[in-house]
């Protein structure tokens, strides 16, 4: 009868373990999408900081740019979810190709609206 008392791992250990598992486990395709998501997030943050510094004068321009960043991020996440092979059971009859096609179509509509709104 062995009782092992393990102390709770520290935050640093947890995060480093998470990072190492991420880099080994996830397929190449998903890592590509994750890089794209990171880039979009940076764009959004830069826009937000700019707005905080300079003020919101053409509010519609700021909103359209910011929402464009947010929507692109969300679309990227949706694409990632739908192309993840672990999720095939959740998305019946949505193949990876169909997910990508939807993604492109959604971006067309999104950018059409953003162009109209940016003023």
């Amino acid at each position, binding site marked *: 009868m062995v009782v092992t008392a393990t102390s*709770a791992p520290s935050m640093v250990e947890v995060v480093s373990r*998470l990072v190492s598992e991420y880099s080994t486990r996830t397929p190449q395709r998903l890592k590509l999408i994750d890089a794209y998501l990171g880039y979009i997030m940076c764009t959004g943050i830069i826009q937000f900081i700019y707005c905080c510094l300079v003020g919101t004068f053409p509010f519609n321009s700021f*909103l359209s740019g910011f929402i464009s960043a947010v929507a692109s991020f969300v679309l990227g996440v*949706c694409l990632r*979810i739908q192309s993840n092979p672990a999720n095939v059971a959740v998305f019946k009859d*949505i193949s990876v190709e169909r997910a990508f096609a939807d993604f492109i179509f959604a971006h067309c509509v*999104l950018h059409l*609206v953003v162009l109209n709104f940016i003023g």
Partner: protein
Amino acid sequence: DRAWYPLGRIIGGTIYPGLMVTAASLYHFLHFLNITIDIRNVCVFLAPLFSSFTVIVVYLLTSEVKSVGAGLVAACMIAIVPGYISRSVAGSYDNEGIAIFCMLFTYYLWIKASKTGSICWSLLCAVAYFYMVSSWGGYVFLINLIPLHVLTLMITGRFSHRTYVAYCITYCVGTILSMQIPFVGFAPVETSEHMAALGVFGLCQIYAFVQYLRAHMSPTNFNVLFRGVMTVALIGVGLTFGIASFLGKIAPWTGRFYSLLDPSYAKNNIPIIASVSEHQPTTWASFYFDLQLMVFMFPVGLYYCFRELTDSNIFIILYAVTSIYFAGVMVRLMLVLAPIMCIMSGIGISVTLSTYMKNIDSNEAPASSVPAKNKKKNTDYPIKSEIATVMVTIVAIFLTTFVFHCTWVTNEAYSSPSIVLAARGHDGNRIIFDDFREAYNWLKFNTPENAKVMSWWDYGYQITAMANRTIIVDNNTWNNTHISRVGQAMASPEEHSYTIMKELDVDYVLVIFGGMSGYSSDDINKFLWMIRIGGSTPEGAHIKESDYYSSSGEYKVDKDGSTAMHNSLMYKMCYYRFGESQTEQGKPTGWDRVRNQEIGNKDFELDVLEEAFTSEHWLVRIYKVKDLDNRGNK
């Protein structure tokens, strides 16, 4: 600038364009095919056309939620239900005609999106939402119901990747699309009515991220990370919302929607909103009148939805419960309730029928299988087939009475035009009151082009359209002070009204008077609201409602009425020369047929107005405002 003189009105920024754009595109499309239908006919028949589309969408929606059978029943019911027909008759060219179609279409696409989790359906839902925003202010209901649905899914543990995809895309693309409508502007990010959607959006991101981490880590590790991040996040979010509300960046709920949550708010604070008869709470009689059988089948359908809970059923349940609450607050929202009632009743009837139809035995039961089945049949209740037949017959009778009721109601209550009135005379023949059109045509041909007409706001649109004259206030005016000024002019004594009318630059005044003909929604009956609205702003401080009641506290126009009432402009305009006319046999002259009283102040002259026109049955009376005295020696 023909409306709301002298303020003018920016039509582009204060109206929902969906209805007009739809009518115009339909007109151009038909002309492109060389089917030359006049634009007026397109507008008149637009509402019935869109209600046929609504029937199709209700069928699609209910078959997604339950089954094809339920879809068929629901579609049949919405085709004839009076609650919906009342706002979609031919000729009612109003936002609600297409708004209900857009709303149900958006809901159908939302259910499709949350069922399949595909980006394509979510995008279509967002575009349908844009169409809904362009057509009616009631889109606020949608943008709060869909996040409520997502929140309920989160709480009940049904939040899946599909819901995440559906909601996030619908919200993001839908919001930026909705801001393209000038009337909506930046409201989706500034007003409290839209904050719930934003909050749920943020919550979605956090929840999905948490799910992702949980799937990739062991429980102990996850707990450590979770606790740390959670505390930071909660503090951050709480601070941001608190500061934003405090600094006034997030506007509080506007009056019209706030009165939905707190029904007594409008009554106490904003008389204009409280005075609209469509904003009154609904009576049980109206519920039964407009919905009949569905009042009883609705709980049945609700029960069956609860029995088989799926993601889409939860949405329908939420829609039903919220609609019932809002329909109880305001009669006008009965319209929003009618479709969901049909859907629920459709589900209820369909499940009832399919349960009992199975039990109706046909006469050729196979004899050989009887011995083997004997044991099983003993556990069922006896005379199964007979009870089933009785139940099916009862449901059939209910449905037949429903049809009779709907057609009767539509014929009686919703089929008459409101501009030409009809009544039965003493000897049974029909008398037509064409006074409105007579008066508006008189205005059109006998007054100068730039004449300004003052009337109560109910008649504003009619005067603009048929008499083609500038008006002071109309049905869409939300400028409380302006309407209040008109109310003060109507309620004050002649001298005071004259100053107000000169300030507003009024040339003619129009009142509706029902005392001669018995028409009960005339201006004297609406006078109390004019007093309330007039007294609600600082300039109207001299107008107190209690001054206009008799000494016993009743609203009277006979000799018991108060002096303020007898001297008000409205009283004088309505009853000028009425004291000499005989309206009914055996009653004294000046007998008001609506109030059933003999008027108190009979013989008076008008100082500041002169009578310009009175229509045939004295329904519409028009007065010209006299010019200022030439030598000013008053």
